[in-house]
């Protein structure tokens, strides 16, 4: 398990190599820490994604949440590309009893452009506080 995480982390770390990742893996890395692996969230802190109208609603609205952030949640537009956002949304929309349709990378790309959100830079350096 640890080893698996590492291989993945190292591959993802090289900026040039864009390995295809599936929605479930992306979810585990980017979402599960707060929304939990079962999508049920933590009451009073992290919203449930199960039966969530935001998750299962129009793809553009769901994409906007990841592109711009929502409430306490940060935007993922700088760290995930359009295809990755589409994959992770598709996973959340079709898991734990959710039955909404898939989201395409093109839909996310169009929404990113419509909202004027900058492309991902994958920047991770800093010395902030």
């Amino acid at each position, binding site marked *: 398990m640890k080893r698996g995480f590492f291989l993945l982390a190292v591959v993802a770390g090289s900026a040039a190599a864009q390995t295809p990742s599936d929605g479930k893996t992306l979810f585990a890395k*980017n979402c599960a820490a707060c929304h939990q692996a079962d999508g049920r969230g*933590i009451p009073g802190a992290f919203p449930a994604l199960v039966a969530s109208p935001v998750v299962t609603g129009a793809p553009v609205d769901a994409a906007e949440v990841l592109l711009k952030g929502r409430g306490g949640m940060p935007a993922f537009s700088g760290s995930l590309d359009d295809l990755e956002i589409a994959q992770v949304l598709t996973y959340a929309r079709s898991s734990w009893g959710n039955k909404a349709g898939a989201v395409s990378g093109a839909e996310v790309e169009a929404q990113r452009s419509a909202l004027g959100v900058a492309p991902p830079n994958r920047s991770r350096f800093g010395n*902030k506080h």
Partner: protein
Amino acid sequence: MARLTTSLTRREFLYRAAAVGGTALMLDTMNAWGMGIASKVSAPPTLSGSGKGKKVVILGAGVAGLAAAFELRKLGYTVQVLEARSFVGGRCQSARKGFSLQELGGEAQQCSFDDGHYINHGPWRIPLDHQSTLHYTRQFDIPLEVMVNENDHAFVYLEDGGPLSGKRLRGAQIKADMRGHVAELLAKSVQGRELDARLGADDQMLLLDYLRREGALEQGDLAYKGRNGRGYAVNPGAGLMPGAGTPSDPLAFRDLLAAKVGKVYSAVQDFPMHATMFQPVGGMDQIPRAFARRLGGAIRYNAEVQRIGQNADKVTIDIRDAASGKLSSVQADYCLCTVPLSVLRMIDTDFSDRMKAAIKAVPYAPVGKIGLQMRRRFWEEDEQIYGGHVLTDLKGINTISLPSNGWQQKKGVLLGYYNYSLDAIEVSALTPQERTEFALSAGEKIFPAYRSSFESAFSVAWHRVKYSLGGWAEWSDDARSNAYPVLLEGEGRVLLAGEHLSYLTGWQAGAIESSWQQVERLHRRATA
């Protein structure tokens, strides 16, 4: 008339703002424009009038709430601080033996560092620029020590650094060699008459003189061939061996360029990271503890805010005792709420929709740190690194920081990673044991003794910490123009304060200076 309005300069506008709303409005206006005057505030506002007979309830015993309580009391107000945790400090925490933390959705962690060792897993440095924080450390006699925030003898380690990948460079090597090579290039350009169009003859001579010194260039051919400030291959010493020592060779200019060292290293620190940086002796939580000693019984612990309500005459705070589950209410004339917006957005209030929307407009930073206790200070003993940061592009690590206390002792606690945003989210999905493994696997690439010296770990992912839900407010430009002024204004008898209502987000100085501003605003409202 319309023309006059559109041509109003900032300066004119500020004069008018000051005329209409006094200096406070002028300062707010300047802050809203990002002019950052707040960072120059070094003492609480001097206010006239008394708050005697009036009660203020303060939500949160973090640094903002504590500073507000302390200052409001001096003005004569009766203050009560409601704190959800069983201890003071908010995000200003230090983990030492016995400290426990259970992140939401995570396992309970108990810190088991040896006595005398700790990690500041919240705020960890006090810059010289933050005179507001230093105002209280001075006033409360909290001993400070220098926090080594700049150490050019510490390593720069790049995994994606082209020809310099996987090498343990010293900051001083990069600084000396980049400056030397760039100085050589520029000096030769002057000599080759390539800058004639830009610089007069006299200035060219002055520039050459500067570059010879700055870049340690050879007098004749203006070449950079290294300098002793980058370190020797063999240090000088006594007798003939080592005697004068052996100089070291500079890194090649092309290699340095190809390594893109600028992505982790800069010879000039950004504001406010430059020296001198301080830390309280014994842990950052010495600051909230000093406030708490002065506030005594005014702080009520385990008081979880359930609802904030107000009418024309008073504020009512419904609370739940986190230990017993018992419900009760507190009433006051005014409320200063220092609860992070990430948490406040979940609390039931009778705020207007506009205010509620503003509270929800601000995302919070995912932030992670891990403290690792090492049985041996190998960074000092083997590498001669005393404090400071190892800068690296190793994924999810960002920096490995060596302790600025306990020099030459046997053991030490270092900071194994300090990550933000996606990195922090990814690492926070790991169990405490997996986080430790993650940190050790990275650190052992740089320090051979890293893994074998490891004893125990304590990690935090602030976005998963109850009552905090994030490291600090991360404002967008949009939210700064729309939500920020609404939040600064507060509503009726409820005002907000905290690092989130400053341009010093994530700093204790932001919390303190925001409280000072809001104390003044509250006092004006209460004595109007």
